[in-house]
């Protein structure tokens, strides 16, 4: 069980570092489309972090939050892309 917790800590660390890298692209990104792509990737990282935290704290309800977030992320991306097309006529 000790080995399992060490692996979980390492994967949580990896996920947080990669979310930081994506957030750097979200801040720097030269165009608006880069920022939307980074936001989509950030929502995927957030789902992973929440699911890992559900394993840490043994709370089964947190998987519901991850499920809802996976639905919301797709809607957000689609609406931002629609906004990108119809921004200037």
């Amino acid at each position: 069980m000790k080995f399992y917790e060490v692996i979980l800590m390492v994967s949580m660390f990896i996920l947080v570092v990669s979310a930081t890298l994506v957030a750097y692209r979200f801040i720097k990104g030269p165009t608006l489309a880069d920022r939307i792509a980074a936001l989509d990737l950030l929502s995927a990282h957030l789902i992973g972090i929440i699911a890992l935290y559900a394993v840490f704290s043994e709370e089964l309800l947190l998987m519901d939050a991850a499920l809802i977030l996976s639905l919301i992320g797709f809607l957000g991306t689609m609406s931002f892309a629609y906004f990108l097309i119809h921004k200037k006529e």
Partner: protein
Amino acid sequence: MMQEFISITSALLILTGAIFMLIASIGMIRLPDFFIRISVLTKASTIGLGFMLVGIALYFNHMSIFLKVTFMLVFIVLTSPVSAHIISKAASHIRIPFWEKTDLQDYLKADETPDDPKTKKSSYGGRKKNST
């Protein structure tokens, strides 16, 4: 014995998924162009999250978690390529500049032979030849 085998397998699956997501975010930093960077997006969502969620479902070994993870996997595999395609289509529509080493021959040829012969418009954003 069986319990240890399940926990080791699930730990390895979770670690594999996390490493895939790290590779994807390094690609998000390092790749030169928006249209090349968009290819990273689906890999992180489908492969990385897929491995992680399967590992978590193995660890919990509970019916409701298994159902939720199955639904999440099906939904992610369905929607992630669609959203990447929609973003790249919108970016092509508002003419985001390409990387200078990208070979644009097929793209410009698709622009010259329009899809819709009545309106003389192609569905590829209508980019002019000299405005790369």
